[in-house]
Every structure is written in C-alpha cells, then in structure tokens.
C-alpha cells in the first residue's frame, strides 16, 4: 500500500471536517414480511434452532434474507449469487412436517415468501444508489457481505444507471481509499464505527430498510463526560465529527423492531468436536498437533500450527516493499493481515516446492525423514507402552532432559515426532534422539539428508516470497482489499496457486487436532465442517 503522505493525512482531516452522514430509509413490504416471519420463527424455536435440522434449514434461509437486505442486486440475481438450492429447501419443509409439525406452517410460509421475492428483478436498494450516482461522480458502495462483492461489482459495470460506481470493503476505508460519496448499505451497526467517524468521503449516505432499527450516532468513546469543565487532573476534548441528517431513528427500541444483529447470519461455529476429534482418540499412530483456529473472510477458517516457532506467510497491505510479504509467528497473527494458503490440495505450500527443489533426491530424503520418526515412535512405545502422542512425548522428554538435551520440552519433543518437523534445531539434540531410536550408526547419513531437506525448505520459502513480491509489485491489490481474498498464480513449475485470505479473527485457545487438518481451508458453506 502507498504510505500516507502529509497531503493524504490532510485530506482525511479535511474530509472529517466537511463530511455529513445522510440517512435514507426504504421500504419493501414483501421483504419486511419475510424478515419478521424469519425472526418470529427463530424466536419461537429458541434453543431448538441449534438442532442439526434447523441449522441446515435456517442457514440458507438466513443467508438469502440477509442478501436481500444487504446487497444492491436485483433480488433474482442476489438469490442466484447465494447459490440457494430451492429443491433442497422444499425437502426440508417436507421433513419439517414430520419432525417439527408445530413449526411447519411458519417455515413453509417463509420459504414461499422468499421464493416469491427471488423472482423479482429489482431491489429497492438500487434506486437511491442510481440517484446518487447520477448526481455526483466518485460513488463508492460499502456493504456487509464480502462474498457478494464480485457479483455487485459485475452488476454495477453492466448497469447503465450504476456504471462508474465502485465496491469497497470496510478494510479499504481504513487506508487511503478516498471517494466523493460513500453509500453504506444497511444499518450503521453492521459496519465498523470508523467508517463514519474517520470517513474517507465528504458525504456518507446510509441506505437501509425502515424496519431495521438503526440508532447509531457519533459520540465520545472515553468514559468521562466531556461537557464537564476541565478539572485540574482531567481534560477531555472532542473534535468535530460528521453530523447525521435525514430520517432520525425512534428514540427507543420497541419489541417490534428488527435489530441489525437479527439479520446477520450467525458467525460460523466450526465444530470444535470435529476439530478436536483427533485429540480424543489418543491413537499411537495418530499424529496430532496443537493448532489455533483462524477465522478468514467469507465465513471460512483454517487451523494453523501453534507449536513453538510455528509461523505463517502473510501479506500485509499496510506495509511497503519487502515487509509486505513476510512470515509472522502464529501467535502474532492479527485481523487485517492476509494469510497465504495453498489453493488446491490443501496443506502447506513449502514442502511440495522443497521436494521439487530436491529433485531426484526428494524421495530418499523424505524416506529418511519418515524413518527416523517412525523408529523413534516405535522405540518410545516399546519402552513406555501404547499411549497417546502427547504422553509419549512427555515420557521421552523425561528421558532426554536429564541427558542434557535442554530443548527437549514435552511440546518440542511432540513437534519432533510430527511429520512437519525436519529435525531438532541443534545437531547434538538430534544425535540424542537418534541414539534413543537406535539409529546412532546411521546418524551421519540421516543428518546429511535432513540438512538437505532443511536447505530446500529455506530455498522454497525464499522463492515463494520472492515470486509473491514480484507479483504484488506488478498487480493492484485493490481486489484483495475489496473482496478479502485473491489468487496468486506462481506458475506450475515453481509454486502453483496460492490464495490470500483476510484474517478476521484468531481463537486464543489452542485445539489438539489431527496434523493433516493443519492449513486446510474450511468453508462454512461446506457443511462437513459444521456438522
């Protein structure tokens, strides 16, 4: 990203001074009815909504209703873009009759309403956008649903009345994306507050349905009352913030209001039971790893190794030059960075390229790598019995540490036993491990092979980073920042295809998972991860 100059910072302060927020409320009785029906059904189900049947049924319904309320696309186009499967939904309605007869009528009515809406070739969100686009150039549109960005951008460029309008993400509005007019689709609470309090536009138009409550207004963020006279030990000042014009919300919420959060599909809860399954089986041969669940844009997630020294390759669009592509320790990853993952095949992208670098020697080296690990595990099992990997690691640690292998903590030994590890960092520690595994006589050969792999991994990491830097230097990252994802084709020969995904959150508690789940992209729309 181009760093902010004093000129661009001045534009930000100038925009805040001049900016006005204008509320526009729109109506659509059919959509209002569907939204109220959906809320009534969810409220009636209460805890039952967590049932697997309802999760599978309500998921696409909520997604569709949210798309109609949040996406400036003709309802028919929005429905197609969500990929809703009407025949599957109808089957669910039929099943409901047997499973939950009390809710059947409500569900059937709701599905019927949504199906009727999805036949409409317009959306009430489009008219005010077209009016704004005709009045001023430089219209940017921000919305809540990043998976719809590409469809909306395509619709804008194909539409006479919306041509020239652009789609932006909230993330782009953190940086230097300035526009004359910003249209915000949906209630203010759907968006980070900075869009309104640190605007990159001189006019912000909030376009939302009348029946979605939106009581947001700019205000102080520090706790003290700024209207009190400055005391000796306190001084609280608030600079100019954009005023809000247009239709003001009702002063108090009523039970009839639909709150902004009511419409947002629930955050995908990737099933911890499934993710944790490997850790509960305690099979000797089952390779497990400690991992952190990393949430990505577009309701996706990935498990990242959390062992000491584990890191991930990221793109940081707030940095310039070499710092924009770098490895970051897993524990230091944060929202706003873009995580790079192998697009096809799953798993890491370094090892496959390292094998190509090793060429004909790869098979032999990898075989040596697998051999010392299997011999080590077999030796530990022989001595301590068939227990889980974690316990084996702890037992081996208690043997190695008294021998002076200071780095042999249970966590490190567990990592040494995993297929991801090449060898312990210190050669003398590796020798101690080989001695325990009864491989002392072949130590020289194994050490040489592991060093070859290590060099190839380093070279692969260097090559991939260099190729990414070259690509990033040649292409605009606007699409990455707008859509929260982007594909980088490094060529079949070198690195294949990598995808960058915006990190939206990181769970703090590590999970014990099967090692082959690490770095595999999980999609909330793929029900296997949620079931």
């Amino acid at each position, binding site marked *: 990203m181009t760093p902010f100059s004093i*000129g661009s910072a001045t534009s930000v302060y100038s925009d805040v001074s001049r900016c006005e927020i204008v509320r526009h409320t729109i109506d659509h009785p059919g959509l209002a009815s569907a939204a109220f029906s959906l809320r009534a059904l969810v409220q009636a189900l209460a805890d039952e909504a967590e049932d697997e049947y309802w999760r599978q049924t309500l998921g696409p319904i909520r997604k569709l209703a949210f798309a109609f309320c949040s996406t400036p696309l003709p309802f028919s186009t929005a429905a197609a873009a969500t990929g809703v499967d009407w025949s599957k939904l109808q089957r669910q309605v039929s099943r409901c009759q047997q499973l939950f007869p009390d809710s059947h009528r409500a569900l059937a009515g709701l599905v019927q309403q949504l199906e009727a809406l999805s036949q409409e070739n317009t959306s009430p969100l489009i008219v005010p956008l077209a009016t704004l686009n005709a009045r001023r150039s430089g219209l940017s549109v921000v919305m809540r649903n990043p998976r719809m960005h590409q469809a909306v951008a395509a619709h804008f460029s194909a539409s006479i009345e919306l041509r020239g309008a652009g789609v932006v993400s909230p993330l782009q*509005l953190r940086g230097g994306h300035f526009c004359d007019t910003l249209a915000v689709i949906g209630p203010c609470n759907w968006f980070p507050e900075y869009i309104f*309090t640190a*605007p990159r536009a001189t006019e912000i138009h909030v376009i939302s349905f009348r029946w979605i409550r939106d009581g947001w207004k700019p205000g102080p963020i520090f706790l003290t009352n700024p209207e009190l006279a400055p005391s*000796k030990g306190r001084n609280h000042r608030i600079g100019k913030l954009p005023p809000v014009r247009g239709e003001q919300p009702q002063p108090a919420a009523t039970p009839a209001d639909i709150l902004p959060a009511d419409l947002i599909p629930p955050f995908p809860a990737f099933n911890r039971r499934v993710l944790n399954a490997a850790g509960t089986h305690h099979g000797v041969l089952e390779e497990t790893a400690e991992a952190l669940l990393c949430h990505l844009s577009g309701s996706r997630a990935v498990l990242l190794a959390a062992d000491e020294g584990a890191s991930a390759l990221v793109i940081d669009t707030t*940095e310039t030059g070499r710092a924009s592509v770098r490895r970051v320790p897993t524990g230091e990853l944060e929202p706003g960075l873009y995580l790079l993952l192998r697009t096809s095949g799953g798993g890491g992208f370094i090892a496959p390229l390292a094998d190509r670098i090793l060429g004909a020697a790869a098979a032999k080296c990898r075989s040596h790598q697998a051999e010392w690990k299997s011999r080590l595990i077999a030796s530990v099992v022989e001595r301590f019995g068939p227990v889980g990997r974690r316990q084996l690691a702890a037992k081996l640690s208690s043997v190695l540490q008294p021998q002076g292998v200071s780095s042999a903590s249970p966590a490190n030994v567990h990592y040494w036993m995993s297929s991801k590890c090449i060898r312990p960092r210190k050669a003398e520690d590796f020798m101690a491990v080989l001695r325990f595994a009864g491989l002392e006589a072949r130590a020289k050969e194994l050490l040489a092979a592991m060093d070859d792999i290590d060099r190839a991994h380093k070279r692969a990491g260097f090559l991939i980073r260099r190729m990414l830097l070259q690509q990033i230097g040649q292409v605009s990252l606007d699409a990455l920042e707008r859509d929260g994802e982007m594909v980088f084709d490094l060529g079949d020969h070198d690195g294949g295809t990598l995808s960058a995904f915006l990190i939206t959150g990181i769970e703090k508690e590590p999970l014990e998972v099967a090692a082959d789940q690490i770095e595999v992209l999980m999609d909330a729309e793929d029900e296997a991860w949620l079931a």
Partner: protein
Amino acid sequence: MTLASPVHLHFEDSGEWHSLPEWAEYFISVGKLLASEPHSGSRLVSAIVVPTRAFAAAFVALGMVINEAAGRDRASEAAHFQDLFDLPPGTTVIYRPKPGKILRGVLQSPVEYAGQLRIRVQVHSKEGGALTHVLGEERALQVQLAGHSGKLPKSQGSANSRFVNGFVEGLLGDADPVQLGVRSKVVCALVGRKNALEQEIRKTPLAIHLNGHPQAEGMLQDVLRVDRFITGQQAYRSALVPVAGEPPSIGVGRAVETGVVFDGATGFLKWGDRWRDRHQVIILDRTEPYFDDAVSAINNRFSQRRTDDGSTLTDAEAPPGGEVLAFREAAT
C-alpha cells in the same frame, strides 16, 4: 496553558510546497507542551484518538525534541563541555561567537585558565595569526562538531553557513542549537511500526520557508535523530521501539528523559505499563484493529489511577475526528 508557537514548516505535495496544516501543528504543540510539564509526583497521560495515525506520533516527538533543545540548562552545558573536553586535538568544529556568525575551527588541547578548565578553538591558520578562542563551560554550546576539512583560512567571512543544517537551525530557532550535540540522549521514545515511522521521519521531505521561498530542506530525522535511523557517528535524540520486536530493553526504559509516544494501539497494549514515571502520549487510530481494546485500557487507567495533581496539557480543541483525554496519574 497556551499553545506553543507554530514552527512554520512546509511539506511537499504534487510538486508544490504547502504550509504545515493545523492538525500537524496541533501534534507538535502537544509534544512541546508535554515536554515542559514536570514529572514530580505524577505524570501526564494524553490519549489522542485520530482518524489516521499518519505523522501524529512523529510530530509529537518533534515537539518534544524542539522544546527540550530550547530548554537547555546548566547540566547540558556541562555535559557538552565535558564531551568537547574529551575530544582529541584536531577535531573539526564550528564556533558561533554570536547569532548569525559562524566560524570554522579546530579543537586544540584544553587548558586551565584562572583556575578553570577551558577548551580552545583555533579559527585562523598560522599564516593568519592562529587566532584561538578560549572558552569556558558557559559557552560550550556555541561549539559543535562539523565535517569540514580542518584547513583553516587566514580570516573568515560568511561562507561557513554550509556547515550548519539550516533546516535544524530554522526549527530550533532561538535555541541556538548545537546541532543536537555530540552526546546522545533519549528525549523521547517512539513505540510503533518501524517502517511506517521511518517513511514519515526519514523519507518525507520538509522545508523551512522564508518570505514564501524554501530556505532549507530537511527531514524530521534531522531533528528527531531516531537511534535506529542515524548514520555514522551522529548522536541520537530519540529512540524507536518497534512493536514487532522484542520488549524495550532496560537501557531504553531508563534512558527516556521526557516522554513516550505510542504510535497506535498495539504498542500501547503491549508496553503501556512500562515507563511508569514518564509522560505518555498515546495515538489511537480509529481504524486500527485493536482500537477498542486500547480505549478500554485507557478508560480503566483513567478510572483507577487518575490523580487531581497538576495540570493537563492544552486547552486547544481536538483535531477533526479526534478525541483527547488527558489526565494525571501517580508516577511510580
């Protein structure tokens, strides 16, 4: 308390020079005012919410360093005299006998005169009479290191201004700067992202204008002298603590004389509890990921540690899109 006077800096945008905008002057004034606040008993915490973090911390640091240079005291004169005293004969310097007059010089062996130690600065060649000034501690700050050849003329005219950094001089003004001296010190610590701060401090051209024309160009680094960006034998005046790196060393922790500027939430959340006896300025960008966490941390500190002891910065309005909470807390 009133706002400190503006510094008349200009910045370049699209090939044209523009005077520094109000928001930038605001941050410089915050740094200046904070640097003039005493530390006794309590310290000042000033949390400044901004619509963009760009340049805010760098300008606060500039204000601190400018103010510190202006407030030279007996201790700094003595320290500077000691440094000059220890330099080997032949070291090249400039000597400013009075404002506007600059002489090239070469240090000679120090002497004792009338029971006091003196340094000697030779300003004319042997052929010109080898005029040598004998200077006591009270005039030490008028002598500064300079990178000239050491060849002295028979007499000196007005051609020596090139040995002075006009940009630094323009910023420090009446402070009669010693080009920030030969002795390093840490007036302030900047805690933030190294690349972003380097871009602002070391790669952004600025200029001092006189009568509508650029008089001297330079970078913030010329005055801030950030330790990680200095070259060669330069002395430093401020320290950078990169948020991506290791925790600040004990040395940096102890060395900070005036205050710490946190450029963003991350550094503050990591190390906001360090430097408990130094003033703090916390720049919080509304758009950054951990903004809300940092605001909560400041609200907690305000409610738990605030004291009513002493003044709290300026009465100036917050910049557009900004919010400022300044309070005193007990220095521990």
